[in-house]
């Protein structure tokens, strides 16, 4: 099925309804004319802190020691992977526009002036080994060990082309990365399409907690798990054949149009329940402070099940903090920090940490000045966390210049696609083809 842009966005369970995508039908084209925001040369030469040279040299070992967990299958096809051990990317979409300045707090009086009620107290800012210019929001404390262990890099001053304060334009760009390529799906969807193989891998991409336009290609669609506890088929009575009948409704010559699409959706759904139910059932029950952490545990279980999954997306909404930001940000960032910490804590025990990279990022930033409602309005300049043993960690890349503002906004200095390119290169994807151009990377990941 050839999906036009509207259908693409609709198909993916995107957070944006038809209301929002109307009027955003980018013309279909294959333009390679990609204009990067700012020069990556200048950006790479001016990180707030010079990249450390002590980042982990770990690539993927030829053989990963037998994972502690009982039974990762060894017969899973791995033809798509660039190495014998499949690498996994975990994307954490911090949707709503995360506030950069209260996430990575600058030691700068101008920050305090702009945030009379929202500034994080000096005493509460979490110091970061090796840098004095910034510290973490207190809720990010669980990530400090990863930072100190060279397993966490932070990139700030990010922006995508056609940056917009509109949630919906920004989301579209966030998912597609290169608007000119929107007709061929989200950026990860294009990767999945470009590396499709004949071998049946049940779940190459899965989106947890909601839909995922970024993961949706033309030929490839992610499995979407809205709620972990609802991912099960419940027939009206025991041992009835209703679920078989449900699958059988897709049998035979498929109908045209939407009926055909609705029929085709059934076997995919039933098969993914078969696969993931076992995975989720084996997930240990853990006490979590924030609900979102459960999704990180589910991600760990999927990785440990070793079923060939390459990309896991975690939907982390709620970052649109127009009001009541102080309290909300604690929960929002706390959930992400606890989640990433828990993910790697589990994966290092099971032996899957080295091959898993996590990118946590948001579609835009917020204004420098607070808004008087105890919040911040939409602004520019985003931030991303890149985590995992494969990361050249303990480095802060990019700038949030509080002197030279543009209409009260930070001026972005790094094209977000530079970070995407790093991740794609690491997973062995043709990043230039997928992003529609070559973006200089910051060597955040040892290939």
């Amino acid at each position, binding site marked *: 099925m050839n999906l036009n842009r*509207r*259908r693409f*966005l*609709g*198909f*993916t*369970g*995107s*957070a*944006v*309804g*038809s*209301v*929002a995508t*109307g*009027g955003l039908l980018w013309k279909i084209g294959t333009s390679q004319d990609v204009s990067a925001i700012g020069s990556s040369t200048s950006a790479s030469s001016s990180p707030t802190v010079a990249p450390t040279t002590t980042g982990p040299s770990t690539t993927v070992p030829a053989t990963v020691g037998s994972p502690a967990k009982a039974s990762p299958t060894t017969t899973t096809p791995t033809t798509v992977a660039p190495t014998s051990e499949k690498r996994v990317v975990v994307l954490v979409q911090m949707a709503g526009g995360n506030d950069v300045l209260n996430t990575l707090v600058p030691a700068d009086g101008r920050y305090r002036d702009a945030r009379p009620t929202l500034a994080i107290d000096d005493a509460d800012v979490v110091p970061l080994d090796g840098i004095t210019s910034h510290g973490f929001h207190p809720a990010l404390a669980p990530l400090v060990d990863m930072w100190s262990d060279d397993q966490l890099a932070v990139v700030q001053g990010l922006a995508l082309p056609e940056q*917009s304060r*509109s*949630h*919906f334009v920004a989301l579209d760009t966030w998912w597609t990365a290169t608007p000119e390529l929107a007709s061929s799906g989200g950026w990860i969807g294009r990767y999945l399409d470009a590396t499709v193989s004949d071998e049946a891998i049940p779940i190459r991409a899965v989106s947890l907690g909601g*839909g995922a336009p970024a993961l949706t290609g033309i030929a490839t669609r992610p499995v*979407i*798990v*809205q*709620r972990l506890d*609802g991912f099960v*088929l*419940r*027939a*009206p*009575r025991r041992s*009835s054949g*209703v679920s*078989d*009948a*449900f699958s*059988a*409704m*897709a*049998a*035979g010559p498929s109908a045209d*149009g*939407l*009926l055909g*699409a*609705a*029929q085709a*959706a*059934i076997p*995919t*759904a*039933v098969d993914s329940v078969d696969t993931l139910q076992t995975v989720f059932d084996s997930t240990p029950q853990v006490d979590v402070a924030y609900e979102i952490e459960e999704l990180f545990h589910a991600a760990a279980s999927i990785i440990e099940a070793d079923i060939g999954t390459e990309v896991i997306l975690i939907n982390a909404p709620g970052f649109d903090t*127009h*009001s009541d930001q102080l309290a909300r940000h604690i929960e929002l960032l706390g959930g992400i920090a606890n989640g990433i910490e828990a993910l790697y804590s589990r994966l290092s025990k099971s032996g899957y940490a080295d091959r898993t990279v996590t990118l946590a990022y948001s579609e835009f930033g917020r204004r420098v000045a607070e*808004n*008087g409602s*105890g*919040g911040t*309005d*939409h602004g520019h300049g985003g931030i991303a966390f890149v985590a995992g043993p494969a990361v050249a960690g303990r480095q802060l890349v990019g700038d949030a210049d509080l002197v030279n503002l543009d209409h009260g906004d930070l001026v972005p200095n790094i094209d977000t696609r530079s970070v995407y390119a790093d991740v794609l290169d690491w997973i062995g994807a043709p990043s230039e083809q997928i992003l529609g151009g070559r973006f200089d990377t910051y060597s955040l990941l040892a290939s």
Partner: protein
Amino acid sequence: MNERTQLGWLARRLGFGLVPGQLDEWEQLGIDAVIDQLVDGDSNGVPPSPDPFEGLDRRPENPGRGVGEASAAWLRHAVSTPRPFEAWVTFFWHDYFAVSARVVRAAGFVHDHFRLMASQGLGNFGDYLAAMTTDAAMLVFLDGNQSSGESPNENYGRELLELYSLGVGNYTEDDVRAASIALTGWTARFRTDEVRFIPRRHDDTPQTLLGVSGVHDVATVIDAVVSHPACAARVAQKVAHAVLGEGADTAVIARHAGTFAADLELRPLFRSLIEDALDGAASEVIIEPVPWFVSCLKATGAALRRRDIGRSFEATGQVPLAPPNVGGFPGQLSYLSTAATISRFNIASTLAATTPQSSPLFDAARTKQLDVLADAFGIDHFSSATNAALNDLDGGVDVLAAALASPDLIVA
């Protein structure tokens, strides 16, 4: 299409399905009279809808419970109202002005918000937009409550221009600021359960909005907005997509937009689109989870249990009264996702298990009269694959569950 098929189509697409016997009654009335009754109940002797929220506590001690009660009450209303098209229109506006009751939390404000959509959703768009601008639920949802002359909050001002009227590309950041300043001063008070205009929180300085000077309050903001040519075009497009489907011809939409622009009256817009739809201008759509669910409740007579609403719907991607964000519910094809497909199956199982076994529909499921089953949902027949699958099952609850979950019921 024969007339019964057309009537079935009308019911499925624009009326949340059919109650038993309704299609026969409609066939006797004839399609023109049915359209009259659907679109203009007042002039055609249709009893008014009872208030969906009658008797509910506006300020229950547990706000979450208030939201749950409001959802259940509205769904029951959608099942039982003598004016199903009006309920469908309200649900359309619920996607358009996608206010989430989970964010608003004040049950009374949520009731009033739905009452506003029900009473003005077929009226004049300018009046409707003005009323929505000072609607209590909206003031809470998009931070109007937090907005004062001293520090205007742009959340509503931006969405007013981007989502509710003009669309991206038709306004500037300065327009967002101007609208936000001119709308300051309106607040929804939880404690007193009312909307108030507080002059000292309002900045009355004349603003220039969309090239119109002297804009300083709700009336002048809305005037400037609805006078902009992009407004009628955008609203007409949204309504046309809802009635005709997203595959609707752009020339057809432009024609309707041109007529609508003259007076911004919604009822004639809906009506003329329906007439075009029956003349072949409509394209296929996915019946979304809430309309599908309501149509199943209507056909089966199964009882609506409040506990079934929240979690079951979460996975469909369409929780009634709780759109995921200000942009509304996800696009239609998202309801074919793995999560939504599984959830449809599970909800169908519950509905089948709670359908009264004495009902004619259950009898048709027990005896596998598949065309009778199909007709109860307004379709001529199931696809051959669905027929074969249903025939392989034991008659009764299994057949009913599988039929309710079938892809045939979610495409029209």
